[in-house]
């Protein structure tokens, strides 16, 4: 058990077997030329028969893209995917996906949904009914064959998703964040049931590949955790999980493992000195604004301050009931603005962050205003507006500028985040009627 480089990750037993899936030097990018966005960069991955592998990482690290490339839903821009040694062309007929959003056809009954997958493979009616009913039984939905998805709870819908995926007896079962749309209890029981089916070999599936951003979930289920990072999306570590099943979350070794994974992720995404990057259009890489809601930023700092200025990220996520996906942008924002620092899986508040947490509304705005002026993207918007005739410019101007560094969609999101920060800081605001940004006169801080 331990961190290792991707090349040395496989254990000796695996070396002798032929991998089910082999991802070779796969890169994926969108767009062309200057505006090319790299979603995945030279990813290598092997999945062996009998393995349960999870892809873990923050949103935007390309883990879902990688899953789609492995199943053949998406094509790599470079590199190739081998299935049992053969290059994959088109959708992999031996793979199925369980979707985060279930992706059930709402107009088909439970049985109809499961049967649709069989019908597409030309299975005749009689056999189809029997196989579908047997699977519905297996996932514990007997009695609900004729129910429509909208009559079922989220957990039950996902059971249909599993039944449908297993109906075609795939060799590779892909799970795309299958539990993240469920309530905590349903998710937990469904995880347990899946693990029971898997470890007892009740299903003919050869290997499972799961995408998740939930670290505990990964440690709970996987034999191997592939840690990914973003900008560009790539594999940064692979960790073997050798704990025996069923795993218990209170187990000391389980907690150690979770901490280890946290360190692997947090250690990579937060560099020690804050890299501010350059403004759009300038040479150098323009650092993205993390899409952090400001309420959450203030809340986070208050919680850290209350727990003595230092908190375990893992415990914190648990306490705030936040997913990795929600927590990390906030942590990143805190770091970028100099309010906090990440240190080996812990987050530590800075004196500045402390005074922010203790300040009143207007004083907070003042601190925030001073800090975000240092962020090149914000400064760029501010100075551009300052130079404009009546301190007003159409949104388009900034979007065009941002699009030099980001996709059209990301440029929009960046500007949205920038505007919400700018509004809070009373630096600049947005006029919805004219679609213009304009400079604001700040409210003076009262000297009480």
């Amino acid at each position, binding site marked *: 058990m331990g961190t290792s480089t991707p090349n040395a990750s496989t254990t000796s037993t695996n070396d002798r077997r032929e991998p089910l899936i082999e991802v070779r030097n796969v890169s994926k990018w969108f767009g062309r030329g200057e505006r090319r966005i790299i979603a995945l960069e030279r990813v290598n991955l092997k999945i062996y028969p009998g393995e349960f592998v999870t892809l873990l990482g923050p949103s935007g690290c390309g883990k879902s893209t990688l899953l789609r490339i492995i199943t053949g839903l998406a094509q790599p821009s470079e590199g190739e995917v081998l299935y049992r040694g053969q290059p994959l062309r088109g959708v992999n007929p031996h793979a199925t996906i369980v979707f985060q959003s279930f992706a059930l056809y709402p107009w088909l009954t439970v049985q109809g949904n499961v049967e649709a*997958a069989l019908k597409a*493979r030309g299975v005749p*009616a009689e056999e189809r009914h029997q196989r579908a009913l047997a699977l519905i039984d297996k996932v514990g939905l007997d009695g609900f064959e004729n129910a429509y998805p909208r009559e079922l709870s989220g957990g039950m819908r996902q059971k249909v998703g599993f039944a449908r995926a297993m109906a075609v007896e795939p060799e590779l079962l892909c799970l795309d964040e299958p539990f993240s749309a469920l309530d905590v209890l349903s998710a937990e029981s469904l995880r347990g049931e899946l693990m029971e089916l898997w470890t007892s070999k009740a299903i003919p599936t050869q290997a499972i590949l799961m995408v998740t951003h939930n670290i505990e979930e990964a440690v709970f289920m996987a034999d191997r955790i592939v840690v990914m990072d973003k900008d560009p999306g790539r594999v940064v570590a692979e960790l073997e999980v050798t704990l025996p099943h069923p795993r218990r979350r209170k187990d000391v070794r389980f907690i150690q493992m979770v901490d280890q994974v946290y360190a692997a992720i947090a250690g990579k995404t937060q560099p020690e000195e804050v890299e501010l990057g350059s403004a759009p259009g300038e040479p150098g890489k323009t650092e993205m604004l993390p899409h952090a809601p400001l309420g959450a930023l203030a809340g986070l700092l208050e919680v850290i301050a209350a727990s003595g200025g230092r908190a375990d990220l893992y415990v914190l996520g648990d306490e705030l009931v936040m997913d990795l996906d929600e927590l990390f942008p906030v942590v990143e924002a805190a770091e970028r603005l100099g309010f906090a620092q990440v240190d080996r899986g812990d987050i530590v508040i800075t004196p500045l962050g402390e005074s922010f947490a203790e300040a009143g509304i207007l004083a907070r705005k003042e601190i925030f205003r001073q800090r975000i002026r240092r962020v090149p993207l914000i400064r760029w918007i501010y100075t551009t507006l300052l130079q404009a005739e009546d301190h007003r410019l159409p949104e388009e101007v900034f979007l065009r500028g941002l699009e030099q560094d980001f996709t059209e969609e990301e440029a929009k999101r960046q500007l949205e985040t920038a505007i919400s920060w700018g509004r809070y800081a009373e630096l600049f605001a947005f006029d919805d009627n004219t679609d213009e940004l304009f400079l604001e006169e700040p409210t003076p801080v009262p000297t009480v």
Partner: protein
Amino acid sequence: MQKRRIGPAFVPGPAFDVGDAVVVIAIIVALYVGVRLAFQAPAVIRGPEINLSPRALPWYALLSLGRMAAAYLLSLLFSLTYAYAAARSRLGNRVLLPIIDILQSVPILSFLPVVVLSLTALLPERLGIELASILLIFTSQVWNMTFSFYQSLTTVPNDLREAARIFRFNTWLRFKTMELPFGAIPLIWNSMMSWAGGWFFLMAAEIFTLGARDFRLPGLGSYLQTAANQGNITAVLWGLGTLITVIVLMDQFVWRPLLAWADKFKVETVEADEPPQSWFYDLLGRSWLLEQWQEHIISPLVERLDLAMVRSRAPQAEQPAHNPTRGERLWQGLAIGLVVVGLLYGLIRAIGLLQALSATTWLAILYGAAATFVRVLIAQLISLAWTLPVGVAIGLNKRLAAVLQPIVQIVASIPATALFPVILLFLINLPGGLNIAAILLMLMGTQWYLLFNIIAGASAIPRDLLYTTETLGIRGWDRWRTLILPALFPYLITGMITASGGSWNASIVAEHVEFAGQTHSTLGLGAIIARATAQADYPLLLGATLVMILVVLTINRLFWRRLYAVAEERYKLD
């Protein structure tokens, strides 16, 4: 209660672009070809003998219904294929969509003279007129259905699409299991709207007569017109009764059951509080015979079809079209070149024909357009004045709605064109009678769209906003200004766009009539088009029809589409 907006949806975009120009030129050329053919139209066309006995009515009703059904089936087939092609091909967004967008805002009835004339020139008279009526209804029905299905096809959620691919659905299964069900509900609503609109055009076509050419068709429309012409009130009442019965029966036995059945295709993952109800559908659901039929005949057939399709067609990836080879490029270029040359040639010939018109004639056309515009405006303002308070009252009050909604629906379902001869019977001898009758026809034909949209909009205002307004003590005009009008805005705009289009259509039949052996005409573009047809003045027919199309298109693009965009962006309550 129905909370859906009824009317066209606009594609956001610039006011006019190159694609629009091409489509407009194509329309001009098509009109020119029609007008050229009209030169050969028979000079005298004998109309049918209409039997006013009530016993003839079932036959007439069947004839009218037959035309409607034929046109509707044609529309349905066309919308499914065209929308599919538009959604799938790369050309879709750039070419196929702008075509629908223009055609849906062109006043279809202005084609009526050109279409009937050219088809009677090409085919045996009666057949030509029958086809012309079907073609006309088709063109009035098809665009919104096509547009709706296109929108459904392009908005199928990505996860459903991916599921279809990973589970290896082929084109057939994808269409049957995913795309058609996903588009079913909007398609049915649009079908209902198209069907209702179709009656308007069918009646117009059935009573169409100009000078020595009697283009009438035996059917409910001509029955009503003949009855009114002869002042036979009993027959008028019989005719109206039959028409209403047919419409109500269609509603009860076709549309309501369809809606109730289609409820299962809705995508919302929660149970709706008020699913559409149909007693007939419930009855069918309990029928033993139907169950047997379904189980032993339909299901096995569908099963066979599905398996045959699955086995014959391997799943194809939903991939963007491959890059064309050089040969294909060559052919494409050649085809496009031919079309361009053809269009340009047609355009030059059309301009040549138009040169026969003097400047005074053009002025008269513009003058007529202005007169019709004023009439449309008056009709719109009158509709707005009464539908706004009434619609809001109905929409906000569930009990009132329960009582009034069915009545309003029946009254609204009578096509205004069917009533037109009856109105004329009473108004034609008054001073300015035709003028009033024309405005009345526009009003009757279009106010319902406005009313239904307002009712839908008012009932869609969220309860919490209503309560908040009440708690804040916002009353009277302030309540209208801060809550009701903004909330209604998208619905109002959609309603008014439909109403305005309908009014322009109505002008063709309304401004120039032959009643009880006499010709009555008033100032207006519709009257000019009708007169040109009657006097076989084909350059004038072409010129006036073109002006009407361009005027309506310009109003739509410069005025309505902008308002529509504002409504979509700022006043949408979801």
